[in-house]
C-alpha cells in the first residue's frame, strides 16, 4: 500500500499561499500575486494527479476493491471521553476524484482570472481569497471525520462569502454575500445538530467507523424512534439539511442566484463546480449509513433532489441574466446528483446511482465551469449580464462560441459527449429506483436542453445589437482554460467510473441501457429543436408562448416568489416581530424595572422628609410614640 501522507500538502500549499499573499500582497505587483496563487494551485493539482494515479492504478491491485486509507491524522481537540476532533486526510475513491476535480477547475479558474481580473482593485485580495477557498475545499474533501468536514464546511462558506462580496462597495454584492452566508449558516445549524445527534449516539466522528456496515451507526443507532423515524434517520436528515443548504437544494436555494454578484471566475469555481457539490459529496461520504441505516432519509434526499431539479429547470427557462440561467441550471444538475444518490442502493449494481451521481458530478464540474468561464468571456466582452442586450456574438468571439457550444451540447446530453453518459446512468438508476422521479428527470432533460440552447442562441445568434465598443475575443490566458475544459467535457465521459468510484469500492458492469438512453436523447433533441425554432432568428414566438402561459411564465420569471417569502420571514418576522420587541422589552421593561427601583427609593426619600419637620416637639412626639409602640409590641404582641 502506497503512503499518501503527502496528500496533506494538497490543502496546505494553498493555505500557505493565502497567508503569504494575504499579508504581503499589497506590497507586490498585482500580477505577481496572481502568478504565486496559480503556481501554488498548479503544485496542488500535480500532487492531486499523482495521488489519483497512485491510488487508482499504482497502489491498487486490479480486481480487488478500493479501500479507504487514513493517510494522516492528528488530534485537534478533546471533547468527551469518546469524542475527539481530529484533523487529517482520508484517501478513498470519492475524495481522490474530488481532489482531481477541485484542483483542475481551480487551476483553470486561477489561470483564467489572471486575465479576467486584470486592473481590478484588490487583485491580490482576490487571489488570496481563491487560495483560501481552495484550501478549505480541499480540506473538506480530505476530511477524515465528520467534524473536520464541518470545520472546513464553515471555512468554505466564509470564503464564498468573501468572494461573493468581493466588490464590497456594490450594495447588491454585499447583500448577496450576506444572504449566501446566512442561508447556508442556517442550513449548517441543521448540519451541526445532525452531527451532535449522530456523534452522541455513535460515540464517534470518524467516517471509517461510521460507514463500516458493522459500525455503531448502522447497527446500534437505528433503535430509538421519534415521530416514526429512527434517531439515525433524524440525524441524517438534519445532516442532509446542511448539504442541501450548500448545494442550493429547494427550498434553501435562494442564495445561489444572488451569489452570481461575485466575479464570474468565482461563480465558475465555487458556485458551479466545487462548493455547491459539497452537499452531494457529504451524502456520498455518508452513503452507506444512509443506504443501510436509514433508507427513509435517503428518500428525502431523492425527492428534494428531484423537485429541485425540476423547479430550477422551469425557472431557468425564463431568466434573462446569463449567469442566473447558469445558476439555476447548476441547481437543477445538482438536483440530478442528489436524486441519483437518493434512488441508489448499496453495493454492486445496486450502487449504480451512487456511481452515476459522482460521475455526473465529475462531468458537470467540467462543462459547468466551462459554461461559466465562457459566460465570463462574453461578459468581459460586452460588459453586461443581460442576454436580451446581446446577440450575434459568434463572429466576434469564435473560441468562446465554439467552447460554449460544446458545453451546451454536453449538458444537453447528446452522445458521445460526457454529459450523455453520466446523465444516462442517472436515468437508469432513477428508472430502477423510482418511476415517478424517473419521469420528472425526463422532463428536466428536455427543459435543460431547451434553456441551454435558448441561452446559446440569444447570445451568439439572433439580431446584431450595437455595442458601445466592438466586442473582442478574450486573451489567450482566458481562452486556453476554456479549451482545456472543453476537452475535458468532451472526453470525461469515457472514464471507467463504474470501476473506480463505486459505493462499495468493487467494480461492476454498466451496459448502456439504450431503451432509456435513446428516448432521453430524443427529448434533448426536441428541446434543442424548440429552442432553435424560437430563438435562432428573432421571432415573436417566445412572447406569444409567454403570453399563452402567462401565469406560469410570470411565476417562473419571479422564481416562484421564493425571495419574497424569505424577505417576509426575515425582514418582517425576525426583525420587526422578534428583534424589535426584544430590544424594546429590554429597554423599557427589564431596564425600566431596575430604574423603577431607584425611582421608588428616591420617591420614598422625598415622601418621608416630613418627619424631619424641624420642630422639637414633633421629634419628641415621634420619640415617645416609638417608645410606646415598642412597649406595646413587645409586651403584648410578642
Amino acid at each position, binding site marked *: 500500500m502506497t503512503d499518501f501522507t503527502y496528500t496533506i500538502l494538497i490543502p496546505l500549499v494553498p493555505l500557505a499561499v493565502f497567508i503569504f499573499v494575504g499579508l504581503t500582497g499589497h506590497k507586490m505587483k498585482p500580477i505577481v500575486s496572481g502568478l504565486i496563487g496559480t503556481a501554488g494551485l498548479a503544485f496542488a493539482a500535480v500532487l492531486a494527479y499523482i495521488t489519483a494515479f497512485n491510488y487508482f492504478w499504482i497502489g491498487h491491485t486490479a480486481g480487488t476493491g478500493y479501500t479507504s486509507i487514513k493517510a494522516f491524522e492528528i488530534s485537534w481537540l478533546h471533547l468527551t471521553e469518546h469524542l475527539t476532533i481530529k484533523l487529517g486526510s482520508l484517501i478513498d475513491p470519492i475524495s481522490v476524484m474530488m481532489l482531481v476535480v477541485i484542483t483542475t477547475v481551480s487551476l483553470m479558474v486561477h489561470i483564467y482570472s489572471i486575465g479576467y481580473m486584470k486592473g481590478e482593485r484588490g487583485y491580490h485580495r482576490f487571489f488570496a481569497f481563491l487560495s483560501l477557498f481552495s484550501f478549505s475545499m480541499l480540506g473538506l474533501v480530505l476530511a477524515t471525520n465528520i467534524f473536520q468536514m464541518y470545520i472546513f464546511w464553515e471555512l468554505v462558506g466564509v470564503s464564498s462569502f468573501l468572494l461573493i462580496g468581493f466588490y464590497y462597495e456594490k450594495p447588491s454584492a454585499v447583500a448577496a454575500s450576506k444572504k449566501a452566508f446566512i442561508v447556508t449558516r442556517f442550513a449548517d445549524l441543521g448540519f451541526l445538530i445532525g452531527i451532535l445527534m449522530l456523534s452522541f449516539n455513535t460515540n464517534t466522528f470518524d467516517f471509517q467507523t461510521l460507514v463500516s456496515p458493522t459500525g455503531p451507526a448502522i447497527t446500534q443507532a437505528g433503535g430509538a424512534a421519534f415521530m416514526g423515524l429512527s434517531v439515525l434517520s433524524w440525524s441524517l436528515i438534519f445532516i442532509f439539511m446542511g448539504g442541501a443548504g450548500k448545494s442550493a437544494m429547494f427550498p434553501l436555494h435562494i442564495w445561489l442566484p444572488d451569489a452570481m454578484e461575485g466575479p464570474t471566475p468565482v461563480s465558475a469555481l465555487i458556485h458551479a463546480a466545487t462548493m455547491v457539490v459539497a452537499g452531494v459529496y457529504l451524502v456520498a461520504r455518508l452513503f452507506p449509513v444512509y443506504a443501510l441505516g436509514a433508507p427513509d432519509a435517503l428518500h428525502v434526499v431523492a425527492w428534494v433532489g428531484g423537485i429541485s431539479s425540476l423547479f430550477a429547470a422551469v425557472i431557468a427557462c425564463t431568466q434573462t441574466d446569463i449567469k442566473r440561467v447558469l445558476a439555476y441550471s447548476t441547481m437543477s444538475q445538482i438536483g440530478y446528483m442528489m436524486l441519483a444518490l437518493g434512488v441508489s442502493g448499496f453495493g454492486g449494481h445496486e450502487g449504480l446511482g451512487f456511481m452515476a451521481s459522482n460521475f455526473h458530478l465529475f462531468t458537470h464540474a467540467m462543462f459547468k465551469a466551462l459554461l461559466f468561464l465562457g459566460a465570463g468571456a462574453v461578459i468581459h466582452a460586452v460588459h453586461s449580464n443581460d442576454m436580451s442586450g446581446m446577440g450575434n456574438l459568434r463572429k466576434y468571439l469564435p473560441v468562446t462560441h465554439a467552447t460554449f457550444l460544446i458545453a451546451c451540447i454536453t449538458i444537453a446530453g447528446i452522445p458521445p459527449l460526457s454529459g450523455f453518459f453520466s446523465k444516462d446512468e442517472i436515468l437508469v438508476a432513477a428508472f430502477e429506483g423510482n418511476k415517478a422521479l424517473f419521469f420528472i428527470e425526463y422532463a428536466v432533460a428536455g427543459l435543460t436542453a431547451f434553456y441551454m440552447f435558448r441561452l446559446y442562441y440569444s447570445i451568439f445568434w439572433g439580431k446584431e445589437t450595437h455595442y458601445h465598443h466592438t466586442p473582442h475575443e478574450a486573451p489567450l490566458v482566458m481562452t486556453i482554460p476554456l479549451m482545456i475544459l472543453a476537452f475535458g467535457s468532451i472526453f470525461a465521459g469515457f472514464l471507467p467510473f463504474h470501476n473506480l468510484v463505486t459505493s462499495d469500492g468493487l467494480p461492476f458492469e454498466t451496459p448502456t441501457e439504450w431503451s432509456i438512453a435513446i428516448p432521453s436523447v430524443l427529448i434533448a433533441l426536441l428541446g434543442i429543436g424548440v429552442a432553435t425554432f424560437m430563438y435562432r432568428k428573432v421571432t415573436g414566438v417566445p412572447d406569444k408562448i409567454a403570453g399563452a402561459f402567462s401565469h406560469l411564465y410570470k411565476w417562473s420569471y419571479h422564481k416562484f416568489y421564493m425571495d419574497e417569502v424569505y424577505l417576509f420571514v426575515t425582514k418582517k418576522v425576525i426583525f420587526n416581530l422578534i428583534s424589535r420587541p426584544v430590544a424594546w422589552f429590554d429597554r423599557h421593561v427589564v431596564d425600566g424595572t431596575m430604574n423603577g427601583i431607584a425611582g421608588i427609593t428616591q420617591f420614598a426619600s422625598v415622601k418621608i*422628609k416630613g418627619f*424631619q*419637620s*424641624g*420642630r*422639637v*416637639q414633633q421629634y*419628641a*412626639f415621634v420619640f*415617645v410614640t416609638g417608645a410606646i409602640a415598642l412597649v406595646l409590641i413587645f409586651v403584648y404582641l410578642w
Partner: protein
Amino acid sequence: MTGTIPLMYFLVISTLMFFIGIYGFLTRRNLITMLMSIELILNSVNINFVAFNKYLYPQHLSGHFFSLIVIAVAAAEAAVAIAIIINIYRNFKSIDVDKVDQMRY
C-alpha cells in the same frame, strides 16, 4: 404611719406626673414651660425611687441617693437649658418653640 398609704398610690401619682410631664412637653409652646414639664418627669422618677426604696428595699439607700443625684443633675440641666433659652431669645426675639425650626428636612 407610712404603712397606711400603700405603694400603689405613689406609683399612680408618679406615673400620672410622668405622663403629664410628657404631655406638657409635647403641647406647650413656651420653652420655659417645656423645661418645667421636664422637671415634672424627673420628679416622678424621684418619687418612684424613693417610694420603691422606702417600701420594698428599706435595707439599702440607693434609691434615695439616686433621687438626690437626679435632683442635682436636673438643676444643672435646667441651668444650661435656660442659658441657651436666653441665647435663643437673643437670636429669635422669642421663646416660642415653633419659631425655632429653621433647620429641617
